[in-house]
């Protein structure tokens, strides 16, 4: 990807003489390409603006060594800045350093992948770390949502023997279910309690207030925002509202197995400040991976 980006930049920076410093004019031209690539990748406009400004500042006046072309020089600056903006090289693990049962709260828009991801995280924690995990569905709205999580728990349990779904009790509110989940977790010696919530719109005040209450009564160690990798410009609103309401500690990008360029990842990181911790790479319970910024950077630039 690096070669292609520097190729593109070289085209743009053709006029620049070697051994020189990158001038404002040269860089402005190159930044147009970067801006377009990022918008095509669905990075949110305000995030693109910030990023481009930052890269412009870093580039102008930058000395171009004899050994590299100006195109290569700018491409490297862009690439490094992007990896940086995505959280720096390497993956950030889930933080479960709390007194068990450790609550993990899953939030996000409708259909983003919360329930499936809950099942995947349960599999990962029980399989790799030997954790005993309780899965609790707080979704009392979507038809068969609680049943969906229960079936996922059964599938995971068939593999690891350490995962259970909180029994479904009709008529309880999400806050009541959350409390019951933590009580059960304590009483029955669970290590982790995953709280799967109903999908909600960031502008739905009543439901955003509900999730705020859930957070207040459970004090989760991780509050994970699950975001579809195909998300467009609305990523800004989602990131802002959920972060303001419940304080996001990590982001999960689902459906990275698609061919979306996944610019929403950059928007999420830029707006919430929370690291992207995991990516969903399929519908199967095993399809959960650590997030590697250096891989996603190239994908966002479409190169």
């Amino acid at each position, binding site marked *: 990807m690096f070669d292609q980006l520097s190729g593109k930049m070289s085209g743009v920076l053709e006029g620049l003489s070697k051994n020189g410093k990158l001038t404002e004019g040269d860089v402005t031209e190159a930044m147009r390409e970067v*801006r377009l690539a990022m918008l095509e990748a669905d990075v949110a406009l305000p995030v693109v603006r910030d990023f481009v400004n930052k890269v412009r500042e870093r580039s102008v006046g930058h000395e171009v060594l004899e050994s590299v072309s100006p195109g290569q020089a700018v491409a490297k600056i862009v690439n490094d800045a992007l990896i940086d903006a995505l959280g720096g090289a390497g993956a950030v693990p889930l933080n479960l350093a709390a007194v068990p049962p450790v609550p993990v709260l899953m939030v996000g828009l409708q*259909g983003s992948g919360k329930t499936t991801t809950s099942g995947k995280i349960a599999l990962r924690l029980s399989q790799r770390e030997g954790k005993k995990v309780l899965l609790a569905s707080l979704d009392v709205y979507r*038809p*068969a949502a609680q049943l*969906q999580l229960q079936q996922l728990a059964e599938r995971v349990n068939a593999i690891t023997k350490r995962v259970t779904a909180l029994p479904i009790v009709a008529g309880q509110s999400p806050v009541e279910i959350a409390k019951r989940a933590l009580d059960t977790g304590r009483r029955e010696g669970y290590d982790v309690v995953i709280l799967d919530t109903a999908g909600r*719109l*960031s502008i739905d005040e009543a439901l955003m207030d509900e999730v705020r209450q859930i957070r207040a009564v459970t004090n989760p160690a991780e509050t994970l925002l699950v975001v579809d990798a195909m998300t*467009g410009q*609305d990523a800004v609103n989602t990131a802002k509202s959920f972060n303001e309401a419940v304080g996001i500690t990590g982001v999960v990008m689902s459906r990275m*197995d698609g061919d979306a360029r996944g610019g929403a990842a950059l928007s999420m990181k830029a707006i919430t400040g929370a690291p992207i911790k995991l990516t969903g790479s399929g519908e199967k319970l095993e399809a959960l991976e650590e997030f590697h910024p250096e891989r996603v950077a190239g994908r966002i630039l479409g190169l």
Partner: protein
Amino acid sequence: FTHRKLDDAALEELEDELIAADLGPVVAERVIESFRSSRFGKDVTSDEIRDALAEEIARVLEPVAIPFEPDPKKKPHVVLVVGVNGVGKTTTIGKMARHYSDEGKSVMLVAGDTFRAAAVEQLQVWGQRSDVPVIAGKHGADAAGLAYDGIKRATEEGKNLLLIDTAGRLHNKGALMEELAKIIRVMRKFDETAPHSVLLVLDATTGQNAIEQVRVFRELVNVTGLIVTKLDGSARGGIVVALAEQFKLPVHMVGVGEQVEDLRPFSAQDYARGLVGGAAGDLASRLVDSQPDTPEQA
């Protein structure tokens, strides 16, 4: 009235607003260019900006605003509902079941998602809500066989409309797309004209990837129309403008909530105003706030 010259800076701001509504950088630029040629340099009020831009966009959407009308001669009119994961296929079928039942049509559903956990039960709840029968098999059952059974039953019972739910699948997964093609092949063993409609459901929060979704689904399963969901949120669904330009596929209806009644016909005017209302609408008021009448305009 407060006026402002619609100069380069103002046009650029408008373009950014359209990008923020998911039209995509290229389409946004094109819309603004043609807007520029008709309006450039004129003094305009904020309302005029909004109206003119909405008009411009509505012109693109008008040709694709085509209501969905089941063919009354077909018994049943067979509809296959497809799309990537989580966009709202099952919910939309639930809403359609109610809508067409209320119109006096007899409706039957097929729980063709035999893959995702509790997908069958989810559709069954929707069936109960409108007292519409649901053909379902076991988890992991062959979706094509189920669709075949569905057409057979619906034909025997003289139903008007058969809505077939399918598992969500990403368009870049060849094997899953082939499975969809197989569902169609098997259906045709019973009725070679089926399915009469293939509706692709799109999520309004989706960005530029929607273009690939439409391109691939259309190529592989001959999509006849689009449905856009989740327009009750803050996402403006601007990608539909790009889709209308590029594919000219009918956009039949929109989803505006999770309840059974939250389905609306697609209206080019309303959609365009929704796009601009949240975009240029805001911009227009900002322009007015920040730019009082300048002497040259007085």
